[in-house]
């Protein structure tokens, strides 16, 4: 009887504070990495579409005719630095420094807002220049790709702000640092996607 009970608990894992999969890795973390791996295919499809259609359209309706590289470079720098503030937030909670964790999380959210604000401004400028979502295959693929990325960043901002709120109420104790780590994984992934987009979409010549 005792042997049977032990078999069950070993096979399915012990429920409790941590939810470990049979691999010994927290199943939430494993799930997040699986999700991020699938996101590679999602953004890969959007980037491929852009590469296929970027030359399709009349002059003035293609994003390459309107890019402002110095402006986008600053936006890229801002998003890169938000990855630094994110990892510092995780480092802070592991040191049981909740005040600094909240500061770094807020800084990350703020940098994310600057990035999204910059993207909204860029879209507005393109719109005024006559490049709309349906102007050309090139503009459609550009807006869909960068728009989806912007939506991911926006989702990340809400996640970070909710973590700050929960922390203020005492719901993110040090032993739950995985909550911050999960948000960090998502945020850094959004950053690496932008690294690829910035190079392929903005810097690589037609």
């Amino acid at each position, binding site marked *: 009887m005792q042997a*049977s009970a032990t078999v069950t608990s070993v096979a399915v894992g012990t429920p409790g504070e941590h939810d470990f999969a049979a691999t010994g890795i927290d199943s939430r973390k494993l799930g997040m990495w699986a999700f991020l791996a699938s996101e590679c295919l999602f953004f890969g499809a959007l980037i491929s579409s852009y590469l296929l259609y970027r030359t399709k359209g009349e002059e003035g309706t293609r994003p390459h005719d309107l890019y402002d590289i110095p402006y986008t470079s600053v936006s890229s720098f801002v998003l890169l630095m938000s990855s630094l503030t994110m990892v510092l937030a995780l480092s802070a909670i592991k040191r049981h420094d909740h005040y600094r964790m909240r500061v770094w999380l807020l800084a990350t959210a703020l940098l994310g807002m600057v990035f999204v604000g910059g993207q909204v401004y860029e879209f507005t400028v393109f719109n005024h220049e006559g490049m709309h979502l349906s102007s050309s295959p090139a503009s459609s693929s550009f807006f869909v790709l960068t728009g989806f990325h912007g939506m991911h960043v926006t989702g990340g901002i809400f996640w970070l702000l909710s973590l700050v709120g929960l922390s203020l109420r005492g719901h993110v104790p040090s032993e739950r640092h995985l909550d911050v780590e999960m948000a960090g994984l998502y945020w850094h992934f959004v950053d690496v996607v932008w690294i690829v987009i910035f190079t392929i979409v903005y810097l690589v010549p037609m």
Partner: protein
Amino acid sequence: MKDTTHSPADLVREDSEGPEVDRVVVGVEDAPPSSDAHADEHPDDGVYVKVAAILAAVTAVEVGLYYTDLSGIQLVALLMGLAVIKFGMVVAYFMHLRFDARLLRRLFVTGVVLAGFVFSIALFTMDILLR
């Protein structure tokens, strides 16, 4: 391949050995006992700041290259190489994949490689079809 079949009596014996049990049962010898087990191996804040400084410098080089007179293929090769370096640094250090379980590394690399492979083929064939 290690034999992963165990009798209930074996499992009882293994259970008394603590965290080793899960690994023995599923045959994942290289899995850590928990995600916290390697938390102390993570770099300190100084390393993160240095990585961020390198990322900023590489971005500056990328933008600088954009304004040079380099021809198409050379420019594309350099830009893609720098992007791969940035991608790798963020994933390895900021996402801690360098210090995390091998399974996570394999999982993510599979996604990246699969995406690269599938869409390279798709781009190659579709590009020909769209011409």
